[in-house]
């Protein structure tokens, strides 16, 4: 019995966290499987906010670059980009979770597009609505099971959802919790690959600094006020500078006087005392 339980547990852990029965064999297939454009019909404002967000360009970085290019010259670089696999892209875990559930041929296509600087293709690779509202919506998978096919997960149950593919909304118990964002906005070094790598450590800062200092707000309470799916800052619009200046404050106090070093030796001096404070629930900078 114990052996069977262990085997069952391993099977549950081994199953990809996806509600799709078939693996995408090509990049186009994967993009189509995770396409969220139909969401725009009813959720236009939210969709437009998301389109301007970093989630809509997770492999592009800021100012339309292709940040993933750096991986192709790192320890993770494939010997032959035409034979690249998921193992060459540890970044997929968060920057493109759907690629982990696709055939390795998709990774090879992505590698070639990145190497060629093909922004038209790379910009199609997005953290779409389905990634957060299905793939990443259940964390307690041993208790709650895998995300279900045809279900979109939100903050409440809705029996009928007017979408031809996603016909029902189920409540995700973590959707409003910081741990939901923490799945990707990181803790520290990742040891799951053959080489360690470290991306965002923001969630680590949240739980190890902000919470111990008495902070009580969630990621969503600050970054998704009124359901805003821009999830500022996006580093590409004027709102970024406004958010920074509203959040990070600088106080400057000055003093001019003559310091007496020794008898008869007065030295004119200016003292500048600065205090930087901020309202964020994590270290700045982090991501």
């Amino acid at each position: 019995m114990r052996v069977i339980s262990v085997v069952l547990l391993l099977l549950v852990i081994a199953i990809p966290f996806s509600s799709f029965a078939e693996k995408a064999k090509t990049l186009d297939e994967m993009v189509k499987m995770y396409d969220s454009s139909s969401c725009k019909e009813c959720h236009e404002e939210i969709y437009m906010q998301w389109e301007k967000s970093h989630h809509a360009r997770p492999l592009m970085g800021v100012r339309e670059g292709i940040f993933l290019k750096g991986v192709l010259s790192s320890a993770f670089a494939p010997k032959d980009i035409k034979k690249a696999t998921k193992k060459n892209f540890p970044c997929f875990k968060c920057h493109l979770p759907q690629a982990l559930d696709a055939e390795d041929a998709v990774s090879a296509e992505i590698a070639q597009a990145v190497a060629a600087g093909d922004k038209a293709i790379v910009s199609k690779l997005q953290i779409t609505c389905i990634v957060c509202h299905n793939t990443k919506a259940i964390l307690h998978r041993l208790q709650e099971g895998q995300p279900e096919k045809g279900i979109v997960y939100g903050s409440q149950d809705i029996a009928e959802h007017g979408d031809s593919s996603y016909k029902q909304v189920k409540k995700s118990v973590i959707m409003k919790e910081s741990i939901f964002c923490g799945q990707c906005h990181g803790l520290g070094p990742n040891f799951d690959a053959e080489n360690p790598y470290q991306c965002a450590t923001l969630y680590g800062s949240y739980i190890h600094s902000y919470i111990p200092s008495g902070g009580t707000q969630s990621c969503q309470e600050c970054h998704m006020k009124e359901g805003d799916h821009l999830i500022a800052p996006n580093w590409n619009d004027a709102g970024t500078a406004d958010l920074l200046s509203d959040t990070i404050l600088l106080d400057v106090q000055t003093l001019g006087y003559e310091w007496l070093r020794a008898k008869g030796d007065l030295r004119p001096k200016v003292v500048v005392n600065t205090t930087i404070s901020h309202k964020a629930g994590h270290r700045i900078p982090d991501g």
Partner: protein
Amino acid sequence: MEVTAKTEDGKEIYNKQMHYHPQATTCRDTKMTYGAQWKTQYIRDTSLQPRKPKKETIEIDLPKGVRTADVTVDLFYELVNPSMKFPIQTVHRKVTLDR
């Protein structure tokens, strides 16, 4: 953050930059590095921590004959490289020793 002091006629007499951010290496040498594919561990963290003000005291010795300084403190966010700056706050103070 950059602190600059100038004389009344615009001559710079002091400049200092302070950088607040976590700093990582590959753990295979002592060189700091950027990029998640290289970074493996923070070795130093001077970033702005939550609910913990960052305080600095900067002492500027004025050159002989200078009794007034225009002090500017610029706080900005550098993204990706030093040329990509988002201004956050700028504070000017005129400080004089004369009464």
